């Protein structure tokens, strides 16, 4: 769920564009450096963008009965870092506006700040904190994804609150109101999205672990350990 076209007043559209622009520029510079080092990354980044786009177009079943979509940026943050995720996320948001009519052009800056900057920064912080510890990689993935999702919606609520402060209580009242309404679906959704991505990692670890090794997402030992843990126990007659 993104802020739709025309919802924010023009001055706030400008402010959020100004916040997003340095991150986009940093992302393009980092992308250029990455491609100079190894141009094989371009198609891989492209298919990652397409993957995030399709994921966000799919409806994720939510516990409250409503439907919403995963942001998918947690996975990209772990694979490529914050700035490149900003670029991929920005492209995905632009395509969502131009191909699915979700979001918009004037509010693209605000949507980039919440989904492609704020969420990934929080997710990346969790990832760095847990990466080299003994915490199971599936729990790390669960936490990164859930935190990135929740922070995305906290920032969206903040963007709406500063644009429309309450008559009584100001920005704080407005923020708590918007977030309380989002929380009904977003807290269960963040948990479900965390579970979904932990399971997605299970499939990647079992079927194509070299992706994670190539990108340095987790060490070989961690992947091997997770792979062994995920192996199905053979039936009794085979074991004997």
């Amino acid at each position: 769920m993104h802020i739709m076209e025309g919802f924010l007043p023009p001055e706030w559209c400008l402010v959020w564009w100004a916040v997003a622009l340095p991150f986009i520029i940093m992302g393009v510079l980092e992308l250029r450096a990455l491609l100079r080092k190894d141009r094989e990354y371009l198609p891989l980044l492209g298919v990652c963008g397409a993957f995030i786009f399709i994921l966000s177009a799919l409806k994720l079943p939510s516990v409250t009965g409503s439907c919403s979509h995963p942001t998918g940026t947690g996975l990209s943050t772990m694979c490529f870092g914050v700035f490149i995720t900003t670029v991929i996320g920005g492209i995905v948001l632009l395509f969502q506006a131009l191909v699915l009519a979700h979001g918009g052009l004037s509010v693209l800056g605000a949507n980039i700040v919440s989904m492609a900057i704020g969420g990934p920064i929080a997710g990346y912080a969790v990832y760095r904190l847990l990466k080299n510890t003994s915490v199971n990689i599936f729990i790390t993935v669960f936490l990164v994804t859930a935190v990135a999702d929740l922070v995305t919606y906290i920032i969206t609520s903040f963007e709406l609150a500063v644009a429309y402060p309450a008559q009584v209580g100001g920005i704080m009242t407005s923020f708590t109101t918007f977030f309380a309404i989002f929380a009904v679906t977003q807290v269960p959704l963040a948990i479900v999205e965390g579970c979904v991505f932990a399971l997605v990692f299970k499939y990647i670890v079992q079927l194509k672990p070299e992706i994670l090794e190539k990108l340095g997402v987790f060490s070989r030992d961690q992947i091997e350990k997770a792979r062994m843990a995920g192996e199905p126990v053979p039936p009794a007659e085979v074991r004997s």
Partner: protein
Amino acid sequence: MLEQLLDSVAQQNAFRCVHPGTKLFLGLGSLLICLVAPSPLVPLVSGIVLSLVLIGPAHIPPVTYGKVLLGPAVFTVISVVILLFLVGGGEVVWQFSPFAGFSLTITEGAVREGVLVLCRVFGCSVSLFFIVLTTPLTDLFNGMKRVRVPVELIDLMMITYRYIFIAYDLAGEIWRAQVMRLGYRRPVEAVRSFSMLSGMLFISSWNAGEDLVRAMDSRCYNGVFPSLEQAEPVSLRSVIPAVLFLAFLIGLCGVVLMAPDGVMTVI
């Protein structure tokens, strides 16, 4: 499961051959005017006129257009209802106290703000839809090249765009196979099926990316993705109505600003 991709509509409408610069000028111009307009009247008029243009001369199927328009409607209505109770000032229009110490109030200022936001969302969204439904993304990529967007970014967008359709078909096939096997019957099964779908989608997208690297390498890929630009000539027949419409909207803004206070409250 997946929403209709609007780009297929953009490939078939009657404005397909109009120069993309003209369409962008009209769409972005009206979007900006609707965004900064001081009164709800301007975005309302712009939204209605552009909607009629889309359904009429552009031959966009009304049902498709209706569905696109209804997309942001739910979020808009919920948000505007919240705004009605939050913002405002002036005289109280409606008050409701379900229990002591708590009351919901709608003021005159909130109604004015709510109507402005509602009309602005309508006007801006229709301006965006005008671009989306008449201009295919491939035309926009060529436009981006002309305004010197970094080439790496455009290449990344083009590859992403190409792979959206491949991943879309694959996701659809897996989804239908899972639904046929009652994969989304219970919440726990739904989460498991969705994870399986996402995992397979990621792995096969990655494989497709690796195949693309090999295919591009064997065709002498040197870091630049050349594409053929088929620019349609700019025609006065389309530019003049666009300029006139934007001038009309600016004029309307001027009239609203100069109108006496009494009239302002009405419009």
